[in-house]
C-alpha cells in the first residue's frame, strides 16, 4: 500500500526567505503523480504544483518549485521569497491511476503547517 509521510508538523520562515517542506512516499508503482496542495486558514484546498513521475525535470510554478528524487521517493516543495499569504497548511499527495476502473486513487500526507513571519 502507498504511504505519504510529511515529517515536519510545523515550520516557520521569515518573509522574503526561502523554505523547503519535505515529503517522502512509499510505492512500488512506476506510473504515478505527486501534488502539493495548500490549505490557508479559510480551509479551501488549493493546488500548488504537480509532478509526473515519468518526468525527470522538476516542476516549477512561479515561486514554488519541487525537488523530485524518484529513486529516493522524495518530493520536497521549495517556496522562494516567502510571503505572508503563504501561511497555510501544506499537504503532499500521491496519485495512482487505475487503468482497470478508470479512476484515480489519492493518498494524502498529514500536512505541514507553515507560518510566514513578518
Amino acid at each position, binding site marked *: 500500500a502507498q504511504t505519504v509521510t510529511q515529517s515536519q508538523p510545523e515550520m516557520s520562515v521569515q518573509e522574503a526567505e526561502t523554505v523547503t517542506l519535505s515529503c517522502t512516499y512509499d510505492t512500488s508503482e512506476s506510473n504515478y*503523480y505527486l501534488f502539493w496542495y495548500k490549505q490557508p486558514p479559510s480551509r479551501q484546498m488549493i493546488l500548488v504544483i504537480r509532478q509526473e513521475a515519468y518526468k525527470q525535470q522538476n516542476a516549477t510554478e512561479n515561486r514554488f518549485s519541487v525537488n523530485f528524487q524518484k529513486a529516493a521517493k522524495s518530493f520536497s516543495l521549495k517556496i522562494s521569497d516567502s510571503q505572508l499569504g503563504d501561511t497555510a497548511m501544506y499537504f503532499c499527495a500521491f496519485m495512482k491511476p487505475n487503468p482497470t*476502473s478508470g479512476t484515480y486513487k489519492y493518498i494524502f500526507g498529514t*500536512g505541514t503547517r507553515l507560518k510566514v513571519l513578518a
Partner: protein
Amino acid sequence: DAGITQSPRHKVTETGTPVTLRCHQTENHRYMYWYRQDPGHGLRLIHYSYGVKDTDKGEVSDGYSVSRSKTEDFLLTLESATSSQTSVYFCAISEMNSPLQETQYFGPGTRLLVL
C-alpha cells in the same frame, strides 16, 4: 475557482441522529469525492463517485453512505452519528480526462461536531 459548494458549513448534532451533508458542483465534472480531515491524519477518502448512481468506498467508509442521483449533487449520510465522526468534511471534484490533466478541486468544507 471551481464551482463547488457544501452545505451546511457548520453543524452540531447529537450522537445517534442521522446527518446528511451535501456537495453541489456547477462544473459538470464526472468524479466527486468525500474526504474527512482530522489532526494527525491529513485527508482520508470516505467515498467517491464516478458517475450518476456509481459510487465506491474509500479507506474510511464505515458508518457512512453516499448517493448521487444527479451529476451536480453528491450526498454524504451518517446514518447514526457518533463522536468519532466529529471532523471537517471536504468534497472534491475532478474531470479525469487524463492523468496529465487530473486535478482535484475542493469545496470549502463542513465542520461537524457530534456531541
